């Protein structure tokens, strides 16, 4: 009876080992590295009912190892782990596995890339190259002035050219594109007072109307190369931000008017506007976008502050006026208006 008891478990051992050996042979011959583990796993599962004890031993061993490992936060152990990850000498397959992972990730990301390419492509299909889909974010039009040197405070001393020379250079540079010769060569002289509408295909090149530097008269820098800065009568150019397809409403050109923003109105006694209408002529609208409207030059209005109180800062607000023009957005101080200070010292 007792012998029987003892033998109860005994025969299972050889059987178990045989199983594993067979299995490994087969594996070595037939299977890929990756499937080897699977097969072994299966074999282990099948052995379980018979080899509980062995299993337990294994578990214990594992646990012992486990106890050793987690405490190993030292660099050396981490390095070893890393090394094992790259090349596990027992399983001889880590590299293969890493390779497989890389391949899978490669395919995954490649297909994602394909998906995003398709998406972006459809996106571009739905977007016209000539006409922005929505222009509501860029409307109403902003206003900007020249010269611009990172500041809207014009502080200069008439008698010290160094203080205003950079304005002159900036203006000169800005107006290079408006030189009469260049304008005459590139652009057409279109009739004033009406929109310069060019029908035809979107992708056709559009002609641009001339805006000659000479329109600015005293502020063109042609007669007075210092744009009035040397005499304490500075010229400031104002331009409206381009918006594709923008047309002033009802054929009324947009006008510019400047005044003292805060304080005594009489601080500015006179302003001359060039062109004299102080407006942006209708013929410069609409704008067709930079792709087709290549030589488009924004129309300008020059303000010539001929008589401003000297030696004190004068805040000036220049506003666009016209039907449908918004110039009182609270958050945006550059929509339909621009505020700057003049502080001319003598």
């Amino acid at each position, binding site marked *: 009876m007792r012998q029987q*008891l003892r033998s109860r478990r005994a025969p299972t051992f050889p059987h178990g080992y045989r199983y594993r050996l067979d299995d490994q042979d087969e594996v070595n011959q037939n299977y890929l590295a990756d499937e080897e583990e699977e097969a072994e796993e299966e074999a282990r599962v099948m052995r379980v009912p018979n080899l509980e004890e062995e299993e337990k031993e294994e578990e214990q061993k594992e646990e012992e190892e486990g106890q050793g490992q987690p405490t190993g936060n030292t660099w050396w152990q981490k390095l070893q782990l890393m090394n094992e990850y790259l090349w596990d000498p027992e399983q001889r397959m880590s590299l293969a596995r890493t390779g497989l992972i890389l391949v899978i990730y490669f395919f995954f990301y490649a297909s994602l890339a394909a998906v995003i390419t398709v998406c972006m492509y459809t996106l571009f299909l739905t977007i016209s190259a000539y006409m922005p889909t929505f222009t509501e*974010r860029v409307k109403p039009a902003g206003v900007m002035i020249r010269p611009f040197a990172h500041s809207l405070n014009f502080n200069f001393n008439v008698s010290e050219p160094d203080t205003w020379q950079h304005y002159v250079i900036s203006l000169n540079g800005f107006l290079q594109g408006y030189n009469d010769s260049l304008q005459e060569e590139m652009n057409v002289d279109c009739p004033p007072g009406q929109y310069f509408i060019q029908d035809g295909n979107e992708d056709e090149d559009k002609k641009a109307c001339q805006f000659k530097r000479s329109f600015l008269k005293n502020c063109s820098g042609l007669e007075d190369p210092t744009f009035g800065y040397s005499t304490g009568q500075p010229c400031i150019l104002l331009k409206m931000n381009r918006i594709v397809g923008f047309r002033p409403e009802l054929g009324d050109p947009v006008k510019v008017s400047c005044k003292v923003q805060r304080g005594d109105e009489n601080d500015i006694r006179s302003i001359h506007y060039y062109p004299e209408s102080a407006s942006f002529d209708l013929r410069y609208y609409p704008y067709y976008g930079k792709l087709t409207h290549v030589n488009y030059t924004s129309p300008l209005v020059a303000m010539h502050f001929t008589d401003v109180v000297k030696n004190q800062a004068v805040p000036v607000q220049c506003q666009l006026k016209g039907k449908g023009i918004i110039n009182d957005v609270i958050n*945006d101080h550059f929509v339909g208006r621009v505020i700057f200070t003049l502080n001319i010292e003598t």
Partner: protein
Amino acid sequence: MAPGSACPLPPTPPPSRVLCCCTRWSSGHQEGEPSGQRGPAGPHTSAQRCQYCTLVLFQKTPEIYSVELNGTKDIDKTDKGDGKEKYRGLKNKPSNCKKNHQIQEIKEELDLNDHKLSNEDLEKKYGTNIITGLSSARAAELLARDGPNALSPPKETPETVKFLKQMVGGFSILLWIGAILCWVAYGIQYSNDPSSSLDNVYLGAVLVLVVILTGTFAYYQEAKSTNIIASFSKMIPQQALVIRDAEKKTIPSEQLVVGDIVEIKGGDQIPADIRLLSSQGCKVDNSSLTGESEPQVRSCDFTHDNPLETKNMCFYSTTCLEGVATGMVINTGDSTIIGQIASLASGVGDEKTPIAIEIEHFVHIVAGVSVSIGIIFFIITVSMKYPVLDSIIFLIGVIVANVPEGLLATVTVTLSLTAKRMAKKNCLVKNLEAVETLGSTSIICSDKTGTLTQNRMTVAHLWFDNQIFMADTSEDHSNQIFDQSSGTWTSLSKIITLCNRAEFKPGQENVPIMKKTVIGDASETALLKFSEVILGDVMEIRKRNRKVAEIPFNSTNKFQLSIHETDDPNDKRFLMVMKGAPERILEKCSTIMINGQEQPLDESRATFHTAYMELGGLGERVLGFCHLYLPADEFPETYSFDVDTMNFPTSNLCFVGLLSMIDPPRSTVPNAVTRCRSAGIKVIMVTGDHPITAKAIARNAGIISANSETVEDIAKCLNIAVEQVNKWDAKAAVVTGMELKDMSPEQLDELLANHSEIVFARTSPQQKLIIVEGCQRLGAVVAVTGDGVNDSPALKKADIGIAMGIAGSDAAKNAADMVLLDDNFASIVTGVEEGRLIFDNLKKTMAYTLTKNMAMVFPFMLYTIVGFPLPIATVTTLFIDLGTDIIPFIALAYEKAERDIMNRKPRHKKDRLVNKPLVLYSLLHVGVIVTLGAFVVYFTVYAQAGFRPSTLIGLRVKWEKDDVNDLEDSYGQEWTRYQRQYLEWTGYTAFFIAIMVQQIANLIIRKTRRNSIFQQGLFSNKVIWVGIASQIIIALILSYGLGSVTALNCTMLRVQYWFVALPYAILIWVYDEVRKLFIRLYPGGWWDKNMYY
């Protein structure tokens, strides 16, 4: 060959027949002694048990091992020997040294010799008078000196410390750093340019706000769940009857002082450690102190050197069961024995719960990832010649984007939701994190009494007419199927009914019989209820058979006798009924009743012994019953019975039958134990009971399963000596406390590791600690149930201590992490299930959270490195973390289990909450898709407004210049700064909504980890849909409702942009279904290993 098949046991439907025979059980009758016999059996066992605990407490005095010998045979002798061995064994245990040292200290303070003093010495010592008591003034003085007579509550962390812990725990410290960096950055900016924007100040403030809000929330949640406990453990203030100023007064027991003379009566809790001065039939229940459930007699005699064993001492928190006594208070509050054990519990270290470790691990991963990405980023940006200040801001952005701010607070919510759910199922969780611990439990060390059993004696078997009958031991007794037609049964039932002093408490007419309260001891109660169920109104029967004389049970007689008039008006004879220890009863009998006929006893003696042995072998308490009709001529109606002189015959009676009782397992227990076993949890029974009883209950409860055998079983089966059996052939083991004492820790480990079914019997509650430590050495997560004060160190030591709500002492409840409100083992199984479920669901939550990190970190990378206008602002990421994602987090906690979680092994400690596949799959698979989807929306918004992606590259610097108000876009249009800003905010909103839309898909796929969503049921968890609705509503409110609030950086988004990310959401769903499909198709395969989280 299946184990056990070599030793075929008879097929065993009722567990009663599992044992082949019981030759070893020579002293089986001990258990069979009548219940009323408190004398020898009770004190003996208690003495034995006291030994174990006092061994720990008082090891300096080895003489305490001399056990009260009272002729109860051999076990005592072995006990005595064992005592010394135990002592030696303990000394050899190095692991115990520290604890012993601690206990040593306690011992030195506790120089109890009051029990040895005479009353006069006591009076002198405590300056009191036995007759008049203390004076009020003196009492007040002493009260001021010693403090109130209450256990000082376990040291609580001050609320402020708890609060501050919440403020700096987890991710908070990262966010604090972020906020401080924000302000530092602003400080530097301000010193350079006083007009610089306040954005950084706001961001810092928001971060601090987030920390404070989530911290406060988590604190509130914690506090709420603690309050449940606080209210639960609050007790009705105890009153004590005290003699002061020569007057009897009732005062709150908290005000008792040393030297007070108190009176106690049955039902009272002993208000302090008391030296008895006088006593009348006083019995106390010392179970909370010694784990011994037998009531013990108390008198004013000094009977033992050991204060715990001497009869003239009563201890705080034990209960007086019956009788009255007067005593002098000798110790109060923390200096009581209980107080000292309780303080021992607080000395045992509190260990981190597994879930706390896992969450910490997660926090470490996330913090590590975000800080290292942040620093790499910082280096990149600095080397790209960004100003250091900007780089710091980027660093903050990366950290904030990485940190799931709302997660930890919601984890608390999730845990408390589960805690609530468990509380409904009678598991009250004290420590929120312990909710999950049960789920990872691999060993449960369970008490027997009350937890596994119903905690009441119940008639289990009857023997009459030479036959053993089985009685129904289920909770309601409803199904008594044994043969009730025999005349013997009629006689037996009469004896059971009449020879019984137990009575129902009046006023319980509508209460089911089994639930009625009974005045009387456990065995009599069992008999009373048994007869009430079968015969009907017992009190009425007793009235009809008027009792004329009675000898109550006492330890010398070992029987109980009463004489009644019969209810037969024609029969003028008196009926004498008797019950008691079977041998004693048999000695007094000359005849036996078979089938209602009296027959000479001789032939039946053998069958009696067989039956007695068999019932005893089942661990049952056996009682014998006999009767005698007193001849009418000798004992006329007027005869006056004198119980002192015994003027009536007490021999040559007629033996009627045997009846055995046991505390049966609760009916839900076997099933629960099976469920535990299939869940890979080892259930170890630890009990103070006798091994035979323990084993019988273990078999009934399934703790030792039907086909497994102990070494003894095998030995018996093969008819060889126990020593010859190969220990490891036995699956089950019954280990007694004495054996345990002799084991080295290594031997214990071996035992615990090699037997799957273990019962520890005759163990002291202190040994529980040793067992728990042994289990923990094996790497198991151990749950321990306990109720006594002396269990509290083990409860504390266990990974999860489970105290009994009904039977448990306060000290045990304090030390435990969980309280079983119904004391039912089956509730633990519920706890296990909930714990496992919450772990799985937290895993899903973590995966869900991690996914969007990619989509929140990538924008910063592209912003700084490629120079896109910022796709999503730091503040907007907070909308996701603290807005749209919050309810989905909680919703995932309501997800049902995918498969039967009770069929898998307990979680291995290496099986992390957040493991590699989870991180990789969440970040590098789904996360990447989410990122791409969000960027497609971002590009769409910018392109449709005029900025094509090609224009965006490197645009950042110009884009952010405040003085550039005519920035050209791809169409030649010119933008003011504010217009660009507004577009940027639109971009934030679009990006945010794109993430939100994809998070919906992400939420749906996280419902399951392996099964298809359609297998699980898309609508199986309604809360998920609440979560999805909340996401959409919050996004709608942010975009349309609060779109005008500039500080939030949200704008009204065109409706069509809401749907741009939809294909990606669908892609996520499809991809995850494919992943799950492969996992299901190739379980254990490469894909399963790398893609299953």
